[in-house]
């Protein structure tokens, strides 16, 4: 046995700094997912259009993103793109873009699957009363599909939240990076990583519960 003594005061000292990291993690995740949801809805619906070239565009996006690691994606955005564009992209923008583009590809598949799972009879009924394609999607299919998206979306939200920890590679001061920085000064790896882990757990727990609640509310109908 080592004579390891757990120092609680380290935790209390780290929390304020870690909280600033947590705040950034939440900002990156929330903004990234918000944009990611619109990207996903757009490309997911694009995949359902009969016109093939549009479907190909959606497929290229989805397959490229799903087929490459998010760490490579963020390093491409942060280190790679500036070389081609001749301008810097700050770490926060890179991080948000990476989450948006990455989650968008997965959300596109969630959207496509949910929309396709709605019975064809719904569309026939909607069109038969004279709704246009767009109106039918908006008022008949989408609201029903959206309910089915919630569980897989919750899954994606949690995955994306945890993916932000990989952004230590671009030096954006999110939760994991903050933890690393604290350890570099006090060498209390056990206490700090425990605190960091619990903070991630709290947030994922809140996301899970919030989505369960939303699912329950919508499911009441």
């Amino acid at each position, binding site marked *: 046995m080592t004579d390891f003594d757990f120092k609680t005061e380290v935790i209390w000292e780290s929390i304020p700094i870690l909280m600033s990291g947590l705040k950034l993690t939440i900002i990156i995740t929330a903004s990234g997912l918000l944009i990611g949801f619109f990207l996903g809805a757009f490309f997911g619906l694009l995949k359902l259009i009969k016109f093939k070239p549009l479907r190909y565009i959606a497929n290229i996006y989805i397959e490229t993103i799903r087929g490459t690691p998010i760490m490579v994606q963020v390093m491409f955005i942060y280190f790679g793109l500036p070389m081609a564009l001749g301008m810097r992209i700050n770490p926060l923008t890179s991080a948000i873009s990476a989450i948006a583009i990455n989650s968008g590809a997965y959300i596109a598949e969630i959207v496509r699957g949910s929309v396709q799972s709605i*019975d064809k009879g719904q569309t*026939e*009924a909607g*069109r*038969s*009363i004279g709704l246009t394609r767009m109106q039918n999607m908006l008022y008949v299919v989408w609201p*029903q599909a959206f309910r089915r998206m919630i569980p897989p979306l919750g899954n994606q939200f949690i995955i994306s939240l945890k993916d932000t920890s990989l952004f230590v590679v671009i030096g954006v001061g999110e939760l994991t990076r903050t933890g690393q920085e604290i350890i570099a000064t006090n060498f209390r790896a056990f206490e700090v990583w425990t605190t960091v882990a619990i903070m991630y757990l709290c947030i994922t727990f809140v996301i899970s519960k919030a989505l369960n609640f939303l699912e329950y509310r919508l499911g009441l109908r």
Partner: protein
Amino acid sequence: MIIQIKDLHKYFGDLEVLKGINLEIEAGEVVVIIGASGSGKSTLLRCINKLEEITSGQIIVDGHDINGKDVNINEIRAETGMVFQQFNLFPHKTVLENVTLGPLKVRKMNSAEAKKIGLQLLEKVGLSEKANVYPAQLSGGQMQRVAIARSLALNPKVMLFDEPTSALDPELVGEVLEVMKQLANEGMTMIVVTHEMGFAREVADRVIFIDKGVIEEEGPPEQIFDNPQNERTKAFLAKVK
């Protein structure tokens, strides 16, 4: 003449489902289409509402060739109400919202007008007290009556019924047929695909027997049911009686 079908052919892949249908329907007429499963009778109905693309021929609804290039199919669909075997109510909308969706979005009415029409129609089909419940809380017969009200809400010129009672428990069939009889008596133009021979005999102005994608025989119900001329009609009626 409200509907005119000329030499309609419809293929599903290599299978020819409709083999040259010619049919004319007058305003106010109640036409019942009978025939075995797979004879093409539902497909014919679905072609009139353009839920199926036709392979060749022409369908003219209220003076418009529905497959014509400059035709707004949404306007024509609003004029031809469709009632489905599986009801296809919108499960996320209340009964009243199901009925008012068309008036609101297709007819661009304001919500007060739409609600007024919706409630009138629910009263007509005997479901006023269900206006604010969701379809999941209704019986099959009630759902189908809501579906009829939903189609009527657009004030269509023709109502198409695709086996409206086939998915219902036997004791619920009557309430739906009653609503349909009432509509027929009010002078609605109706095309009904059904296996309810009693309804056909009582309400139809004309009965059409389709077999293997061809209209084999048509005429007033007395002729078709009591004195069929065609061998296939006789064979079919012998089976369903």
